[in-house]
């Protein structure tokens, strides 16, 4: 490779790309090179410009300067359709599918199998089914996509892009909402495609995955290129330094375990709580100053449990108590009234209001809690917004920016800020670190601990078991929509959680390391 005689031009060559949004310089003279048959990780902090680079290359945003060459020829697609036709298929960070169309239509939109100008519905469904089977999904492809979970939607988006059999496949945080099993399947398919000579760009904040799958790494920071390295010869700490431009503060200090602290009072308890066909009845006690982790595979009932606890879904039996007093949780309003907060997993549909500014998004829940006749003054709003922008390091630190213009990870932080601002007694976090970069990730975990030391009760869902183990006092494991085990104290470790998740040992092999 170091041979300068190498005659074949790289598959995709990006030179000197710049892009500004008003005063924000999202990209400055960025270079990027993708060779045929390689899996190339594009890394950087939240807001580094990864998604913007992808959108500029695929013609979604016009570029201010620079050239893009595909197989040596200059290309300048002006829409993602044009990019597709040129041979670049992309799964953008926001799941870009249509919930109102069937799964099959989503997979084959604009390229349905046709006969005499008529879509061959049966053939299309058959192919859709076959395609999804490769990804380990067995679902009704005639049903509207919106009926399915984000994970399934994401797999569908990836399957669509893969099936376009382009020369370049770009995946912007494809694994953010997938569980281990699905990630394995995706990686298998990626390797297969790479073997066929397709170049794959892979964006992720999971460094384990980056080391597992990628051949080379390009790092961006603040819209500039930091460097390009071979994955195998780049130590992890060095990579983090490249991404952050500084050392990562050590965060994995020991945490006082429950036994070291005085016993905590029960904040909320749920007895025989459940809903038929949703989650089997469970008992759950949440204490002040305690973190309870919910672990389990995708679709095992974690999010469902969280929604029941918050009141977003009604239970059909059992009894909920807050500070010992029986309460009824019929709607999210009830949850908020009792001092609960809920940071959902689907920030785009359930959380963020893209048109509103960061400040407005942050004060939203607090304002709702206070009621309309007690409006927050502008000064109070500014103060709150400023405090959380600083605390969570939301970038750019401008509370007056519409949230929709922030990078994905920073939107996630704004959502977290919204609930923190209500000073809840119980906070439910569904995948709080998803799509968040390594630096902010450590920050959020630190924050979770601090909050908890202040007496907040926390219920946290996460697919990252290491993470759960670090901050949980107790871990509830779910399987097939039922709470199957509760681990506490010393017994909390990754192996035990996996054993409980798998029960039959199948997932154990997957865990390997």
């Amino acid at each position, binding site marked *: 490779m170091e041979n300068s005689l190498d005659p074949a031009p790289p598959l995709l060559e990006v030179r000197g790309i710049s892009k500004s949004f008003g005063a924000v310089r999202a990209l400055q003279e960025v270079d990027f090179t993708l060779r045929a048959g390689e899996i190339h990780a594009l890394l950087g902090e939240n807001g580094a410009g990864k998604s913007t680079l992808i959108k500029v290359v695929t013609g979604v945003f016009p570029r201010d300067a620079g050239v893009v060459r595909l197989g040596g020829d200059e290309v300048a697609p002006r829409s993602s359709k044009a990019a597709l036709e040129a041979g670049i298929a992309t799964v953008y960070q926001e799941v870009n599918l249509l919930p109102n169309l069937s799964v099959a239509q989503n997979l084959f939109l604009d390229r*349905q199998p046709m006969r005499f100008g008529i879509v061959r519905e049966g053939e299309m469904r058959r192919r859709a089914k076959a395609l999804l089977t490769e990804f380990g999904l067995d679902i009704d492809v005639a049903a509207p996509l919106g009926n399915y979970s984000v994970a399934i939607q994401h797999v569908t988006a990836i399957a669509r892009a893969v099936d376009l059999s382009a020369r370049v496949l770009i995946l912007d945080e494809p694994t953010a909402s997938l569980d281990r099993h699905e990630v394995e399947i995706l990686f298998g398919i990626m390797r297969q495609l790479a073997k066929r000579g397709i170049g794959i760009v892979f964006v992720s904040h999971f460094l384990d995955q980056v080391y597992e799958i990628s051949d080379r790494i390009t790092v961006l920071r603040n819209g500039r290129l930091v460097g390009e390295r071979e994955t195998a010869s780049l130590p992890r700490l060095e990579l983090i330094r490249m991404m952050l431009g500084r050392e990562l503060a050590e965060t994995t200090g020991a945490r006082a375990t429950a036994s070291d602290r005085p016993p905590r009072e029960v904040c909320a308890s749920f007895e025989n709580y459940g809903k038929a066909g949703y989650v089997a009845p469970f008992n759950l006690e949440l204490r002040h100053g305690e973190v309870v982790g919910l672990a389990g595979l995708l679709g095992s009932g974690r999010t469902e449990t969280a929604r029941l606890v918050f009141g977003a879904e009604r239970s059909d039996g059992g009894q909920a108590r807050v500070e010992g007093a029986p309460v009824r949780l019929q709607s999210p309003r009830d949850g908020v009234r009792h001092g609960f907060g809920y940071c959902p997993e689907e920030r785009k549909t359930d959380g963020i209001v893209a048109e509103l500014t960061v400040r407005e998004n942050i004060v939203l829940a607090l304002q709702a809690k206070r009621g309309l006749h007690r409006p927050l003054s502008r000064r109070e709003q500014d103060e709150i917004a400023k405090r959380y922008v600083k605390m969570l390091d939301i970038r750019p630190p401008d509370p007056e920016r519409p949230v929709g213009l922030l990078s994905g990870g920073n939107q996630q932080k704004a959502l977290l800020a919204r609930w923190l601002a209500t000073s809840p007694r119980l906070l439910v976090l569904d995948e709080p670190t998803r799509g968040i970069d390594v630096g902010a990730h450590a920050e959020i975990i630190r924050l979770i601990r601090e909050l908890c030391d202040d007496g907040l009760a926390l219920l946290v869902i996460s697919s990252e078991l290491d993470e759960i183990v670090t901050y949980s006092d107790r871990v509830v494991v779910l399987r097939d929509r039922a709470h199957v085990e509760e681990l506490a104290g010393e017994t909390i470790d990754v192996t035990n959680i996996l054993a409980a998740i798998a029960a039959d040992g199948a997932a154990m092999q997957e865990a390997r390391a």
Partner: protein
Amino acid sequence: MKGLPPVLITAIVLVVGFALCAVQFPNIASTRVVGNLLTDNAFLGIVATGMTFVIISGGIDLSVGSVIGFTTVFVALAIERWGVPPLVAFVAILVLSAAFGAAMGAVIHVFDLPPFIVTLAGMFLARGASFLLSTESVPITAPVYSTVSDFALRMPGGGRLSAIAIIMLVILIGGILLLRLTRFGANVYALGGGRATASLMGVAVGKMTIKIYMLSSLLAGTAGIVFSFYTSAGYSLSAVGVELDSIAAVVIGGTLLTGGQGSVIGTFLGVLIQGMIQTYINFDGTLSSWWTKIATGILLFAFIALQQGLVALARRPTAARAGVAS
């Protein structure tokens, strides 16, 4: 599938309403009344078919009533004053209206303007242009007109299925097939699901927008020709407010006003419901015909409330998430 439950509700409303009418006036349940109902509402059925496409794609077309008005005046003048053969006049107006729709679609896409505003401007433009042509009613006496008016298929029970009713049914079936079975139809739903997303998925959003408004205007032009057969005259004030009637028919037919879901068959049922109310009022004889509007208004409210309910239900993630095969 897509939009079926609301359509079912519309169908039930129609059947129950018709049964109630028939109980009070047994004569209503005859092919003669049904045949007349189809003839009287032929033009509405045609524009509403086009409107269905527009609304499912997330837009609205307020210009259709004016396009009908303009068409009647243009056709009447062309045939009676300018001596143009009727067929040539028809082709000319269809080309003209299609171009008008395409222009509106292009403006909406290129300048990224709300369809409401653009088609509102189109509405004034077309209405103004028809006044410019003539302010009085121009009767049409061409022989084609009497031939077409006389033509009808006999139905069992003495009813007549007129030529314009047949045209409407043909367009309706064409619309159903176009929306259900073609790539174009799938893209219409895609646009309604989200323009930005559809564009990211490779749908040529600009071309689609132009085609959709072109289709709507083309059908409005067709409806105008049908209207001129129906009244045998061209008048610049004809079909005022038809855009609203057709939007009502579309919404009552279960199409989501925000786009993404709906069906042509539902729209047809919506047209029939409006026709049925009108027929009932005619039979009753004592009620003012404005009761049609009031009844339509009440129905609209009911359906929009219903849709909001359904949308709210659909927003909640379903419990039955499909499992991942392992």
